[in-house]
């Protein structure tokens, strides 16, 4: 019985290996290999010697962290609000959250230029209302990149969170109330802990996606907000220094795996 399906799955496995695993293996190979000399760590030494690389890595982490936090701060209340809606309201709100998924990231990112530019919607509103005299520059800096990334990735957090929230039985909250808990206690002791696994999973997903984001930083950062993926683009397409790019990619991969491992540990501890 067990081996029976293998014949059907084998072509897919081969495809997976050729299309996904082989390139990663090749990349890892590049990062530790020097033509004619074999195994080497010199590409990593190169990374350490040029502080620009570490700065970009730190920069990427910071932007990813802020964008993720912004996502949580906006996404959690949004999902909570959606849970309280009628069935019809939920459907509408859900489509509004998912709708951007169907529009190309490129289009959405360019839309932010219209909204955030010096003559854009936000700046005109700010000046008209007298809050500022001169236009605030949102574009071509970290602020713009963060706003853009938070927007693009919001559904990745809101969807799992919303799914977890609607699974929470209202009777649990009623039980807590009848046991004497005020609304604040009901939220923090009952509701929030039950959404925590989904929140953690969504947050992690968003953070990892942030780390490797390319389009939005490239457009909204205008080349002035160097993130890892943009650096990789330069190293591969412009200089080109593939070994260096492979070494950086390897570090990124390891960081991502470490974060994921930490999450799994926390998750398992919570489940035990």
């Amino acid at each position, binding site marked *: 019985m067990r081996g029976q399906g293998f014949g059907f799955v084998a072509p897919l496995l081969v495809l997976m290996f050729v299309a996904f695993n082989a390139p990663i293996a090749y990349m890892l190979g590049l990062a530790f290999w020097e033509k004619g000399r074999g195994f080497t760590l010199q590409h990593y030494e190169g990374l350490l010697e040029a502080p620009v690389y570490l700065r970009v890595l730190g920069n990427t982490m910071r932007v990813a962290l802020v964008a993720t936090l912004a996502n949580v701060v906006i996404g959690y209340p949004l999902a909570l609000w959606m849970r309280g809606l009628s069935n019809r309201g939920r459907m509408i709100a859900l489509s509004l959250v998912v709708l951007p998924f169907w529009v190309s990231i490129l289009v959405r990112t360019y839309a932010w230029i219209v909204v955030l530019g010096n003559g854009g919607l936000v700046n005109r509103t700010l000046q008209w209302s007298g809050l500022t005299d001169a236009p605030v520059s949102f574009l071509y800096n970290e602020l713009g990149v963060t706003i853009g990334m938070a927007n693009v990735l919001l559904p990745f957090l809101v969807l799992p969170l919303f799914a977890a929230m609607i699974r929470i039985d209202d009777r649990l909250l*009623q039980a807590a*109330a009848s*046991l004497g*808990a005020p609304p604040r206690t009901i939220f923090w002791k009952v509701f929030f802990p*039950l959404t925590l696994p989904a929140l953690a999973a969504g947050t992690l997903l968003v953070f990892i996606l942030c780390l490797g984001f390319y389009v939005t930083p490239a457009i909204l950062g205008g080349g002035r907000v160097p993130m890892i993926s943009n650096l990789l683009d330069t190293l591969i397409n412009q200089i080109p220094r593939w070994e260096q790019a492979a070494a950086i990619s390897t570090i990124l991969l390891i960081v991502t795996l470490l974060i994921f491992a930490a999450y799994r540990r926390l998750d398992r501890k919570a489940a035990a």
Partner: protein
Amino acid sequence: MSEIRLEGVTKRYGTFAAADNVDLAVTQGELVTILGPSGSGKTTLLSLIAGLNKPTSGRIFIGGRDVTDAPAQERNIGLVFQSYALFPHMTVLENVLFPLGVRKIGRAEADRLARDALKLVRLDGLENRRPSQLSGGQQQRVALARAVVFKPDILLLDEPLGALDRKLREELQVELKQLQRSLGVTTLLVTHDQEEALSLSDRIMVLDKGRTQQVAAPTEAYLKPANRFVAEFLGIANFVGLPDGGQALVRPERIKISSSGAGKPARVVEAIYLGQMVRYHLSLDGEGAKPMVAAAPFVGPAYATGERVMVSWDAADLWPVAK
């Protein structure tokens, strides 16, 4: 410890009345069951008393205090849900500690109270389990411990044994009754099971379509039902014609069967062996209507299917019931 009083309590969803002008007074320490078919408004009534829902009209008093507009948090009611509603992310002990933590009871004292409550429902030793690691009967007891640990003024139980299998249910009925009596807490218990209502209650309130049909002691509700609905809901009901054209109820165990003697001639259509009892379906001669049901202890003379018998009853065992 308190009494409960409902005055004209009505809950409407649109034009539909889930509870319709319900009056009820439960005295201190009494156990009253609300008995009714599914959808008759039992849960609605409990949720109104617990404050999870607001009545459309009418007043609710607990211990003489009008709580109609008080939030659930301030009513000090122990509530056990039909689905138990245990907190899945907490251990058994943490579940039981929850109402004590809310009441700012010191850690050591709370711990002692919670462990006492768990001992009371015979769950000591399972403190660190999660609800998902417990059987249905055990979950039910955790819910019960959580509902009594903070010494509530009243206890509300929504079909607390409904999800359990029959044997366990009968065991827990006895335990529940003993627990309630030892705590002396005024209790309203919801059930759709008439045996449970008859065996547990000081009084029964029979509910149908949101309306009170009767409030009475079990024997009275069983033998002297207020109307035909109560008569039929509380067990097997035989109706016999009265000389004045009315109808009267006679319960199966009041019907006497003999092979010869006084009474009406009849034929045994079915003899059903039930262990302690035998139930006979009897077709009275000349009365084509549905067979009469009689129940007799198994130790007496037995009659076989198809046998001809004589059937009688005492006039004192008849109770007139409106059609």
